[in-house]
């Protein structure tokens, strides 16, 4: 019996851009004037993220993170914080939804320029067990802004 699937391209998963964000994460650190902070971890694999936002009115002025984990979770966090700066909270939530759609294999989302560098992570959708890695920082983001509005 051969239950094997066609081999997803590892090179598509581990693109240079992803490894670059993994090894040289942008916006890594903490904010002194954070208005929103959330810590999330994946208890199964141990990936961790502490996300801090400085939100002024409805605009995300700064986003920083501290984290430990695999290349996918850390690159996703790095790319996300780059993209968030200057966005409104509703825009950020819309991006989180696009990111989630891309992880579910939505080709339109994978081509959506709004996702910027994050499009390099579209290959993760072929590796179901790794989707939670890519979405960990985004789940932290949605938790943070929802808590902020509550």
């Amino acid at each position: 019996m051969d239950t094997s699937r066609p081999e997803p391209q590892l090179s598509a998963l581990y693109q240079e851009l992803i490894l670059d964000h993994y090894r040289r994460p942008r916006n890594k650190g903490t904010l002194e004037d954070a208005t929103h902070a959330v810590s999330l971890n994946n208890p199964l694999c141990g990936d961790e993220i502490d996300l801090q936002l400085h939100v002024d009115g409805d605009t995300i002025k700064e986003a920083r993170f501290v984290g430990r984990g695999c290349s996918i979770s850390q690159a996703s966090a790095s790319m996300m914080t780059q993209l968030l700066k200057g966005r409104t909270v509703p825009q950020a939530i819309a991006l989180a939804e696009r990111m989630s759609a891309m992880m579910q294999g939505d080709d339109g989302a994978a081509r959506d320029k709004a996702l910027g560098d994050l499009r390099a992570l579209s290959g993760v959708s072929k590796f179901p067990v790794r989707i939670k890695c890519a979405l960990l920082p985004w789940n932290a983001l949605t938790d943070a802004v929802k808590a902020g509005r509550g």
Partner: protein
Amino acid sequence: MLDVARIRADFPLLAQRENGHRLVYLDNAATTQKPSAVLDAILDYYRTTNANVHRGAYDLAIRATEAYEAARAKVAAFVNAWAPEGVVFTRGTTEAINLVAGSYGRTTLGADDSVVVTGMDHHSNLVPWQILCQEKGATLRMVEITEDGRIDLSDFGHALERRPKIVAFPYVSNALGTVNPAAQLAKLAHAVGAVVVVDGAQSTPHLKVDVQALDCDFYALSGHKMLGPMGSGALVAKPELLDAMPPYHGGGEMISRVWDDHSTYNKIPHKFEAGTPNVEGAVGLAAAIAYLEGIGLDHIADHEQTLAAEAIEKLTQIEGVTVYGPRARGHRAGVVSFTYGDIHPHDIATILDQDGICIRAGHHCTQPLMRRLNVAATARASFYLYNGPDDVDALAGALVKAGALFGYVPA
């Protein structure tokens, strides 16, 4: 070395291909594959023998009960238990340890007492003691480990100075493969009056275990880690301890007489087996033991140690790979935990999976140990009797590929 080709033919799942490659299953510390003998025993039980045990008045039920009790005798003989009634069937090691903590621990421990565990214990031999100590206001003392991943014997001695009521440790570490000097540790613990609980999840499948020679008091094992079905396992204990302990779960089977407001309890081991037991699990576990005995635990241990030594040699030749745990043969079972430069273990596991190689990546349910090793996670290859040198070669080859993919240039 064992005749791996012949052994593999007994395991239908190993003939399966993964991602277009021969399946290289190196996650045996998590669970093991099952030989046809075990699968057939379970199927045969349901086809010919199934009925509820210990209560039927008809021949079929008597045969089911005999099969279940024969399985208990098989487990008892396999680890040289004190008596068959000292073998309580459980869902596995976790439930066995929870039983000891919840029954023996709850009646024995007071606020001034302490429980000793080690920095390499699996969460299943740690969290039940945390819960118990929190409930009682007692102290939980974690013994440190040495740099090469062994129990620090001088710290173990310090922990015993407080005269703990319970001392718990793993015979073999699931994360590092360390084979602990269990008999020596038990002797030291007994000298201060402690009761000794041994986590045998990783030792029972891989070495010849004799609980009377170890002279522990409680010994927990899991069937699924030794070719048996998931949800099978046992607590092996000194009968006089079990006799004196209160029940853990209430229900049918564990009672003697039931009145409106109280009950008297069945004799051991039934006192600890409330409800309909996992008879197929027990029957499958007995078949697994028969299979292991047919090959010989000493041969299996020797085979795995050879593979582990080969793996350590090949892996450490790759620049950037760090192997954790003791190196000396005899101090390590067939478990090899490692990291590779800055490539996260999850990324390593994903890359290896594309070559059909199954390893574990993560904290291995040993978060306190990972903190002591100063790593968030490791990659872990763990061997069993059906693994061969070709599996070690596949592992090393795929790791080199992972290194290339990550552009890993040694410093």
